[in-house]
């Protein structure tokens, strides 16, 4: 009887330990599996997109916008697309990510280190897409101000409709604004004549990602938004 009790006690003590150990192993195993599952995909990918974390923004505005952009690209091509990675402008990973995406609602300021790193990134051939969320004017205003600091001789300017970016995949003669009687123009930053950064202030990310649910009847229409976003991505891939 004592032996049985001892055994029972042993079991009752051992069981939680084993359970905990099992849980730990399971967690480690799952983490390892996740890493292993991601690693080959990353290695086989040919299109890498980084979502910028900047200032107080953690790169989560309009949550799935990065994934939606990736899906647009993967639907239109045979490219193996890597899942978006969150990067700060001071991260070394920046130089492993040829396409950066940034969006937001609010004003922001880039540090001198971020500006220097971004300048170097552009000189090395990187590409940057920014979108003001929900046609909020604070973000594009800050973007123009901060990005014009990068190359003082080359401020941010509107990209005319003659530019290849409007017809790199879909031919877009003009993009109409839904809530104002005007055409929507992308804005860009040029380095030595090469377009390195593009901004759309009219809720581009809301249109191609959320069907304008957060920006109803404003800015770019969802149909135009998808075409425009894909054009920008294809332009970045081919230049």
């Amino acid at each position, binding site marked *: 009887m004592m032996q049985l009790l001892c055994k029972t006690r042993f079991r009752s003590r051992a069981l939680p330990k084993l359970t905990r150990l099992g849980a730990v192993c399971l967690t480690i195993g799952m983490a390892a599996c996740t890493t292993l599952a991601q690693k080959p995909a990353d*290695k086989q990918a*040919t299109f890498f997109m980084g979502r910028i974390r900047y200032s107080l923004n953690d790169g989560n505005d309009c949550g799935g916008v990065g994934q939606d952009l990736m899906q647009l690209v993967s639907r239109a091509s045979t490219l193996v697309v890597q899942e978006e990675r969150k990067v700060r402008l001071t991260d070394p990973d920046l130089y492993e990510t*040829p396409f950066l995406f940034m969006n937001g609602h609010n004003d922001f300021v880039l540090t001198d280190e971020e500006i220097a790193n971004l300048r170097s990134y552009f000189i*090395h*051939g990187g590409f940057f897409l920014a979108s003001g969320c929900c046609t909020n004017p604070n973000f594009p205003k800050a973007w123009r101000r901060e990005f014009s600091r990068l190359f003082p001789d080359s401020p941010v300017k509107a990209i005319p409709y003659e530019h290849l970016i409007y017809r790199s995949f879909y031919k877009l003669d003009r993009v109409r604004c839904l809530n104002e009687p005007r055409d929507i123009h992308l804005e860009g930053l040029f380095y030595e004549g090469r377009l390195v950064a593009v901004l759309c202030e009219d809720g581009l990310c809301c249109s191609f990602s959320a069907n304008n649910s957060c920006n109803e009847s404003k800015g770019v229409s969802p149909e135009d938004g998808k075409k425009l976003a894909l054009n920008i991505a294809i332009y970045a891939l081919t230049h």
Partner: protein
Amino acid sequence: MLGGPATFDASWTNSRLEKLLPVTFSGDSDSGPSDHDFHLQLTPAAMQHPVFRLAETGAVQENWSIVPPFQRFGRVDSAKPGAQVWLSHPSEVGPHGPRILMASQPYGAGISAVLCLENLWRWRLAKDSDPQTFDRFWRQLFRWMGNVGRQQVRIDITAQDLRPGQDIEVSLQRQIEPQSILGPNRRFLVQVENSDKHVIQSESVDLADSQQTGFRFHPDRAGSYTLNVRDSEKSLVAARVLEIRDTDVELEHTARSLETLNQWAAVSDGLAFKAEECPQAADLVAQIRKKVQQQVSRIQDTPRRVGLNPWTFTLLLSCLTTEWFLRKRWALI
């Protein structure tokens, strides 16, 4: 052709594209990614070539050491005869030596090249790399590829059918270019090298401006032959690679279209064989003769059907005529 494993896949094997490229495609392109990073390995030929000089100073190998590592590459099987390998994998070995990462070959009046590296943008984007070297490499490569077709002496092959054992007629024409570095000397040396890089013929020729001059050489066996034209300073001013084959083009890779050949053979009462499996000529002739004899005897043995000859037709016509006369006589008409 640029790309990684998705580009250099087995689907190109035996295609027209493969014919013009300097490499043969690999059947095991699905062997998965290399798990480790690798640096590019320059071949001795690349070390000597101006395209691969990335800086004005320093050794070529040293210049290339700053190029960041890569992870994936397109697998090709081997370089073709006459092709030049420039870059190779430092550790991975294919069926014919180190895996080729870059190669080129003259094709027609131009040059074709492959660069089997995926995500080449890493080179330019890498934080420690100098974008100027990347741009310089591409500028030099395209300038070199573009200039190959504009050699100072044009080499044309007059014959379409190049076979071993026959004289090959070559036409040489000096190009007039304002920036030509050729001096007033009109004497040139034409050399023919075989696949083993041995000079089989060397001849001095006089090339006047824009006038065609003939040259002839005799390839004893099949293979790749290189015609080099050198000026009086022994500097190479033009080159062209010729592929002399000992099989007829239409008999190449017959296995691929044997189905069609069989159909043609069936229609024309002929025989179809793979070139590789073709028996001795005497056996082949015997088979054809036997087949012809069988056909002749079959025709002779075939019984003629009654009614399908002029006599039957005449008899039938006579019967009908007699019937008509009798009917008329007996007033039945």
